């Protein structure tokens, strides 16, 4: 790996060792949690107090500060899960498998939040809780993919075999990600097109954009917190017979 500095390589090598991962994430988590809480407070203050009401949607648009970051996270986490799954499949790294399965519940949560807040936003703005348009339907399929991953993992007792099965499912499901992303461009959807990702000229005012991006970063930190908490639990359950887990008790 000539492109990766030696220290970085050593870091990842050490992190692949379960006891080291457990100890390191234990020290890291309070900091990540604090950063998440501070960013959320700042983002919500900006979004709920400082930002003006939308000239068309009034105050209902304020759902955007959780809806859009959640939808972004639902896609981002799926890709992380599939990449971790692929790494686990190829190199048989136990921690990659654990990151994969620990991401699934967090991703499912964000997908659920994106769908629910979208519905709560759609009712006053579109006059309906739900339509079977391409964006909403493909996001619903994403939720089913996450739930499928969780159910499949639970259904196979040997967790190494389960991880391989889940990784294949997760990788195949990646096909849905570009479909969700481009659905608003490929099809005529009731869901509006992108407002933020037009880099040259985002059609959203800066007083609304800054809290939105702050919330997006806050949710990234939340993902790290929730995923690592799940990973630590998963790890000691899998390694229950090892010396280092017994050492945690004494």
């Amino acid at each position: 790996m000539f492109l990766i500095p030696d220290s970085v390589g050593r870091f990842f090598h050490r992190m692949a060792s379960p006891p080291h991962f457990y100890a390191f994430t234990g020290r890291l988590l309070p900091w990540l949690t604090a950063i998440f809480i501070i960013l959320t407070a700042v983002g919500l203050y900006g979004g709920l107090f400082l930002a003006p009401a939308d000239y068309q949607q009034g105050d209902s648009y304020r759902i955007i500060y959780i809806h859009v970051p959640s939808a972004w996270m639902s896609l981002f986490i799926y890709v992380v899960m599939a990449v971790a799954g692929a790494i686990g499949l190829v190199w048989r790294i136990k921690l990659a498998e654990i990151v994969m399965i620990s991401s699934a519940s967090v991703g499912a949560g964000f997908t659920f939040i994106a769908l629910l807040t979208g519905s709560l936003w759609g009712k006053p703005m579109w006059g309906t809780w739900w339509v079977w348009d391409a964006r909403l339907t493909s996001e619903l399929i994403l939720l089913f993919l996450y739930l499928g991953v969780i159910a499949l993992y639970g259904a196979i007792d040997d967790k190494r075999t389960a991880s391989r099965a889940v990784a294949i499912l997760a990788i195949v499901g990646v096909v849905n990600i570009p479909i969700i992303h481009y659905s608003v461009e490929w099809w005529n959807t009731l869901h509006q097109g992108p407002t933020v990702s037009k880099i040259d000229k985002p059609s959203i005012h800066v007083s609304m954009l800054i809290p939105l991006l702050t919330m997006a970063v806050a949710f990234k930190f939340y993902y790290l917190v929730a995923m690592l908490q799940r990973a630590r639990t998963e790890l000691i359950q899998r390694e229950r017979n090892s010396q280092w887990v017994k050492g945690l008790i004494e």
Partner: protein
Amino acid sequence: MNWQEFFAMGGYAFYVWTSYGVTLLVLLAIAVLPVIQRKLFLKELAHKMKRMKKS
């Protein structure tokens, strides 16, 4: 802007606060459940090890 006005959300209070409330509950549950599970698991394991030592 006073607080009453803030909570009214221009008439969209139900939609906005339900969104924020459910989001809070879901995120809290997903982050806290594994911590509780881990504590219970370690407790159970400690019990088991104690019994093993006695016998």
